[in-house]
């Protein structure tokens, strides 16, 4: 069976500067891949390239998602096809009510999948159920998108969106950063609840503690725009002990 996501020799530039320098990665349904690596190595860039952000240009290589060329799709089409990016820095959008935002997104995706759109009441019921799992209040869900949220609240709101939108491939960019101990557990439970044989995850993190809760099938180290090492969950433990020095000159 072909992988869900297949990245081959991916080179990409950000505002003209080459940041990704030949990435190869295949992800199958049901798998959780962790990506670690030094600051500035290109992890968020990879996530943006996958989500289709403007200014992030693929200059070489290919990205195939469920058999289709991902690079040819607009960001909203990628999202509707099942790609979800939990942002490292979620964006505040003053004036746009959270419920309007989430309902518009939810129904756009349902429509794309040929499913019936939900009316306001049905939608609210669904959000209520999911927000409870993430310890979020009605007020937080109704407020303008991310406005006035603490760092940890923003991350939980990303997880609420993921739970609502039920993506095929979730890319979580440092969703664990900024979370207190209890919130980390809550978020990890949320991620685990979504693990399924049809769903894959690409989890970008700096810390082992998330991986204690959400145990990855594979761990990759991204350094200098390339994947310099791949292994199983024990690789993350080695890195935790030794730091990126363990990789020697490759990571420079």
């Amino acid at each position: 069976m072909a992988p869900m996501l297949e990245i081959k020799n991916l080179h990409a530039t950000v505002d003209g500067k080459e940041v990704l320098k030949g990435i190869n990665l295949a992800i199958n349904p049901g798998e959780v891949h962790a990506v670690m690596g030094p600051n500035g190595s290109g992890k968020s860039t990879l996530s943006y390239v996958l989500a289709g952000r403007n200014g992030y240009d693929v200059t070489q290589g290919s990205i195939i998602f469920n058999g289709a060329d991902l690079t040819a799709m607009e960001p909203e089409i990628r999202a509707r096809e099942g790609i979800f990016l939990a942002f490292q820095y979620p964006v505040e959008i003053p004036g746009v009510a959270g419920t309007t935002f989430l309902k518009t997104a939810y129904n756009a995706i349902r429509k794309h999948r040929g499913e019936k759109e939900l009316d306001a009441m049905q939608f609210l019921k669904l959000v209520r159920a999911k927000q409870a799992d993430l310890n979020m209040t009605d007020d937080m869900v109704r407020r303008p998108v991310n406005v006035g949220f603490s760092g940890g609240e923003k991350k939980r709101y990303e997880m609420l969106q993921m739970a609502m939108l039920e993506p095929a491939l979730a890319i979580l960019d440092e969703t664990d950063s900024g979370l207190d101990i209890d919130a980390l557990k809550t978020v990890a439970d949320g991620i685990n609840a979504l693990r399924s044989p049809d769903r894959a995850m690409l989890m970008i993190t700096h810390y082992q503690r998330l991986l204690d809760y959400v145990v990855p099938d594979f761990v990759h180290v991204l350094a200098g725009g390339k994947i310099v090492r791949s292994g199983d969950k024990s690789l993350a433990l080695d890195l935790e002990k030794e730091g990126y020095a363990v990789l020697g000159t490759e990571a420079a």
Partner: protein
Amino acid sequence: MTKRHLIANFPFVDAFDAVRADLPGAPLDWLQAARRNALARFQDQALPNRRVEEWKYTDLGALAKTDFAAPYGPIGDALAARIGATGDPDAIRLVIANGRVDSALSNTAGLPTGAHLMPMSTALDTHSDVLKDHITRIAALDGNGLLALNAAFMMDGYVLVVDDAAVIDPTIEVIFAGDGGQGPVALHPRNVIIMGQDSAATIIETHLGDGVYWSNPLTDVVMGEGASLRRYKVLQDATDAFHLAHDQVSLASGAHYKGFIGAFSAKLARHTVAATINGADATFDVAGTYLLRGDQHNDITTVVDHAAAGSASKQIFKGVLDDASRGVFQGKVTVHKDAQKTDAHQLNNALLLSDKAEIDAKPELEIYADDVKCAHGATAGDLDENELFYLQARGIDAAEARRLLVSAFVKAALDEIDRDAERARFETLVDAWLERANG
């Protein structure tokens, strides 16, 4: 000497003697004299050209070249139907069509006691003593040819008088319609609002029409001590229409004026809002939004004079400009020597959705008192790429994402409207404008 006016040969001006018998208050000698004086002043002043400082950004050239006649009488059926569908059909309403009250479309039966609403033509029959001072004072305003034209050709507008201590809760709806279906016409409505001591009222004005016409309304608002007025204006004029409005507001102590302008249409519009705060602790607030596309031009010019201590003024405008449209915001605040503890705040934010759109913002503060709080700000920018991408990354298409962001931008102005029904009405108009963007 450089010329500071535009040459215009309007047929309606030449027809002054022919039409004046049909204008409101024809039997009143003092009014006939005032009209004639105003006409002479117009012939002297003409229309301002762009060498006149306050008209630097708004060019009346196209207006001056149009052959405006006096209005032809009744409006078309389609327009009448649109008036019927405007606002709450059960509301107290006065309809001024082509410069004349349309009694069939009006309904002032439910007006609470304490409020007196009538067209200018009726008011001049029944209350000419009250109006004389107002009309002569406005006729003497030495502004420009536009004011002089309104004074010379003054037509039906609305007169609202609210008695001392009368608090009028239901919203009063006034609809102005222009119909240039038989050729361009010039309309000069005159409105007078007299708010008694501690009185309160809410008015919503809608301006709409068909074809080429020029509406030149002049509104005189006198706020007594502690009076409170909400005045909302919806500009839905025809796409070929000209709208040049002048508001003259005076506030006694403790009075509170809350204005809102929603400009959604017209080819060229200018809203001049001039306020003089004569009494202590009065508040003058005016907010608005202008949504422009094509080659529309919208100018908001405010002139606020703080002449008494402890008063406040607040101006918040949000403009959205697409295509080759152009917006102008000129806000002048003067704080006179004795107006200590004045709090004046002014903000104009423009969202430029196209490279060809343009905004000219000119805030001006003149402060002669030393203990005041004055702030002004003007920004222009396009939509935030980060916000757009965040929405798209959730499956929301680019056009819808833009709509959400524009509507969020405008919301900050609409939030200034403190009546739910009226705020909802403006929200609907904003949504309709945004929908058309995708059509």
